[in-house]
């Protein structure tokens, strides 16, 4: 036993030694290899170019460009080029660019025949003739993969990106010849051990002082940025005077003027009706309130028009012996709870009911579709309804879902009868009201933290997504009846003296295209604002 104990003790010591020494070995090894690489690069003074090798048109934006940078880089510059091949610092109308999620520059405005730009790397404003035709992005680049995101909205062929990476040497101004900028840079790797004389030490002390002064300056700029950030945030949502605000009439390109040509069509009425979001909202609270009203209209309509009676017929006639989850019996309770909600505040308390109802309805649709796809579609349960209801549930619960599946193409080409239209609209608007109310609660805060700003955008993004889906449902309502019953619908609408219904449908489709485009723009706008504020788009 004594020998065994000794053996065990020795073994434990050995294991500890290995554990302790192993990382140290790794560190030394990596330092050595880094130094070797640096040496080789210094000797070779290598320059590497990353080029999109084509112009990026606006409809491909935001465009993601990934570059793989070796670890001994010393300087990185980014430029744009157009059809003429000339290189520029900025990339086009309403352009912005970010590197690894950090904003680099952003188009601000167009006044006096000149664009105005903000460069985040030096916190400066520039016109169309900046002193350099490149931006130094060295501080934003890491060894390995780097993601560059670029957006612009310029007609024509677009704009390309070229990134120049210098290894081992700071380069001599391939881009501009502006050597002064390079001389100001302090090599990052210097330590006190590199200074051997008293003079060197005093240089180091001086540089340390300068460095700490720079840090203080950065902190001041940080505080200023924070104020600017909160100011931007406050003024942006929702201020009808701001041309970019997301849910107002001034969704980029969507003006009352340009809607007039669609007067009389269904969508026009929906957009400009007295209680619609587009004309009605001047705050997020308004958006939430109106969405609650909209949801109540649709809950009542679903009930009054006979949705549940039809559902009863379908389930107890066509699917009489089919098995369903017992928990689906909660639907009446969930429906009545949401129908009787009278304010957005109350709705927020019922978030789980929204999720529960959408999940239960998805359950029914899935069961019917799974049992007999064609039969279910004939009864008004197209496959898409399950996806739509699933998206609403996912978006409400805070998850992110694949709205791409619920695309315009799916609706226009495969729009089918749907028995679930009113209930889809109802639950969707409950979800929308929930997110708008949450956005409102954050927007009215006197002091708001970065985390809360992030949360605010979390909710507004979902509002925009749900509004897009809402538009898709409106058009589905118009066209799906037509697609399968064109003759019958022509007859019946003539019977109701709804004349020129086909022309109205055409106009609806055209308007629908514009609206979807504009919501796309709104989303891009929101994305650029988030990028401005240093927030990540994907969350």
């Amino acid at each position: 036993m004594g020998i065994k104990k000794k053996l065990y003790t020795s073994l434990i010591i050995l294991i500890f030694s290995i554990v302790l020494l192993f990382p140290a070995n790794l560190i030394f090894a990596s330092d050595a290899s880094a130094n070797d690489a640096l040496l080789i690069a210094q000797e070779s003074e290598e320059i590497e170019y990353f080029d999109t090798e084509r112009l990026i048109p606006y409809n491909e934006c935001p465009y993601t460009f990934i570059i793989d940078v070796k670890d001994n880089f010393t300087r990185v510059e980014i430029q744009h080029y157009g059809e003429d091949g000339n290189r520029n610092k900025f990339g086009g109308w309403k352009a912005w660019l970010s590197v690894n999620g950090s904003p680099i520059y952003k188009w601000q405005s167009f006044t006096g025949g000149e664009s105005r730009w903000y460069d985040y790397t030096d916190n400066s404003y520039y016109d169309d003739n900046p002193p350099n035709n490149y931006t130094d992005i060295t501080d934003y680049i890491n060894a390995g993969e780097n993601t560059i995101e670029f957006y612009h909205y310029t007609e024509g062929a677009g704009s390309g990106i070229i990134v120049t990476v210098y290894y081992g040497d700071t380069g001599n101004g391939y881009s501009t010849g502006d050597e002064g900028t390079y001389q100001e840079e302090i090599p990052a790797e210097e330590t006190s051990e590199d200074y051997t004389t008293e003079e060197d030490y005093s240089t180091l002390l001086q540089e340390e002082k300068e460095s700490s002064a720079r840090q203080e300056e950065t902190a001041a700029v940080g505080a200023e940025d924070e104020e600017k950030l909160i100011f931007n945030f406050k003024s942006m949502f929702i201020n009808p005077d701001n041309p970019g605000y997301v849910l107002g009439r001034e969704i980029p390109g969507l003006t009352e003027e340009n809607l007039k040509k669609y007067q009389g069509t269904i969508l026009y009425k929906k957009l400009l009706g007295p209680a619609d979001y587009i004309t009605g909202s001047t705050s997020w609270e308004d958006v939430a309130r109106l969405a609650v009203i909209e949801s109540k209209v649709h809950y009542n309509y679903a009930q009054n028009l006979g949705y549940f009676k039809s559902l009863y017929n379908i389930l107890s006639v066509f699917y009489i012996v089919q098995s369903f989850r017992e928990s689906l019996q909660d639907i009446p309770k969930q429906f009545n709870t949401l129908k009787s909600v009278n304010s957005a505040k109350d709705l927020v308390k019922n978030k789980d009911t929204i999720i529960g109802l959408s999940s239960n309805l998805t359950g029914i649709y899935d069961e019917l579709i799974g049992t007999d796809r064609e039969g279910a579609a004939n009864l008004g349960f197209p496959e898409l309804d399950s996806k739509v209801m699933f998206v609403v549930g996912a978006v409400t619960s805070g998850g992110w879902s694949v709205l791409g599946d619920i695309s315009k193409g799916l609706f226009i080409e495969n729009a089918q009868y749907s028995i679930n239209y009113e209930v889809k609209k109802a639950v969707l608007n409950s979800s929308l009201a929930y997110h708008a109310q949450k956005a409102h609660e954050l927007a009215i805060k006197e002091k708001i933290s970065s985390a809360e700003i992030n949360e605010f955008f979390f909710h507004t993004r979902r509002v925009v997504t749900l509004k897009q889906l809402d538009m898709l449902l409106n058009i589905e309502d118009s066209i799906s009846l037509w697609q399968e019953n064109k003759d019958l619908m022509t007859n019946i609408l003539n019977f109701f003296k709804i004349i020129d219904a086909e022309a109205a449908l055409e106009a609806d489709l055209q308007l629908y295209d514009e609206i979807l485009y504009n919501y796309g723009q709104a989303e891009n706008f929101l994305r650029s604002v988030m990028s401005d504020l240093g927030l990540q788009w994907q969350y």
Partner: protein
Amino acid sequence: MNNTFRPKEKKMKKILVPVLCIVLISLLSGLLFCGCSSEEKEITGEKLGEAIKEIDEEVKISRERVDELEKLEKEDFEIISPYDILELASLDYQYTSQEQTSENSFTIAADFIDGRRIMIIRFLNPGKIESFYLQFQSNLYSQGYTFDQRLRYSDLCNSFISQDESTKAYLLKKQNYFIALIK
């Protein structure tokens, strides 16, 4: 050394064995409980339909009497033709009519001399009428007609009023028929 450890080991065993037994029993009962709860109960479509019907039963039903629909109420639409239905709904007023056949339906539209109008649509696919009836109502609402009330006739009967309130439309769903009556 060994002798001093043995009683302790025994003591340990005495404690460990019951503790382990308790842990095992808890784990087993936990698993059993989880198994039971994860095995969610199922119900038939009929039972689910009954539960959902409760929502519909809350809709207030109007006692309004509509003569044309009264006449149709007693008839079995499986055994009479669309023209029989038209004849019953005419209330002996003269009318002009036209018929149309499409892939999924057969339609007769008629104008009575007293200004009433009727459209009788017979769906060839029994499932289609459920969704058509509902979706058409939603569409009608978008076209400016607002829901008025639920009436007591047949499977489902709702009335709508036009925007200028000059027209009242009754939409009836009975068996495979969709009937629109405008007064």
